[in-house]
């Protein structure tokens, strides 16, 4: 059970939007996490260092949260092997859909891309259905 919050999501979302703005206006790049990290696995000339630095920034941000706001991560709800499998599935799925929540859901929707709208509606609906099946039909999951 989680409690409804408004201000922290709004502030966090504003930071995400500011990050995407920074990357777009200063570097001319779309802040799609899956695409940025995916590009590291298929290295192209001149495309590696900024992607690696963005990923390093993400990890540094995670380290800062872990140090000064450990509650941001909460207690682990599933085992580590399951987390690894889930992470691999997220990576596979986001490349299959050529974008993730940040690329399609934030950057794509902000530029009124119909393709991103279709992608966002699809993955949100699919995630909700998956949650429904796992939690309410199978009675499993955290």
């Amino acid at each position, binding site marked *: 059970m989680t409690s409804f919050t408004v201000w922290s999501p709004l502030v*966090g979302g504003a930071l995400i939007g500011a990050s995407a703005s920074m990357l777009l206006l200063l570097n001319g790049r779309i802040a799609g996490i899956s695409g940025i990290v995916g590009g590291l696995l298929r290295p192209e000339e001149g495309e590696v*260092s900024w992607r690696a630095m963005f990923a390093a920034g993400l990890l540094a941000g995670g380290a800062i949260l872990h140090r000064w706001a450990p509650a941001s991560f909460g207690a682990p709800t599933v085992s580590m092997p399951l987390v690894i499998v889930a992470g691999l599935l997220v990576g596979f799925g986001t490349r299959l859909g050529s974008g993730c929540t940040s690329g399609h859901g934030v950057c794509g929707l902000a530029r009124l891309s119909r393709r991103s709208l279709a992608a966002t509606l699809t993955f949100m609906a699919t995630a909700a259905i998956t949650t429904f099946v796992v939690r309410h039909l199978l009675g499993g999951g955290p």
Partner: protein
Amino acid sequence: MRRTDLVAFAAGLVFAIGLGVAGMTQPPKVLAFLDVAGAWDPSLAFVMVSAIGVLKNDRSRNAAPTVTAVSASNRR
């Protein structure tokens, strides 16, 4: 170090802090957002609304003609 690398690092850092502040790093919160048939917690909808609002506002104030070319070449 090149300027684009510094910008990318700063953007990644701010993005991660934003995820944490928003509550998106807490799996129970994300699951509660997706669990529309259970104890639905719509909080995380505000994350997307806010992020899009900030990005859209910045974009309209700084018309960037390179955007379409960039997004076409940069598969998300």
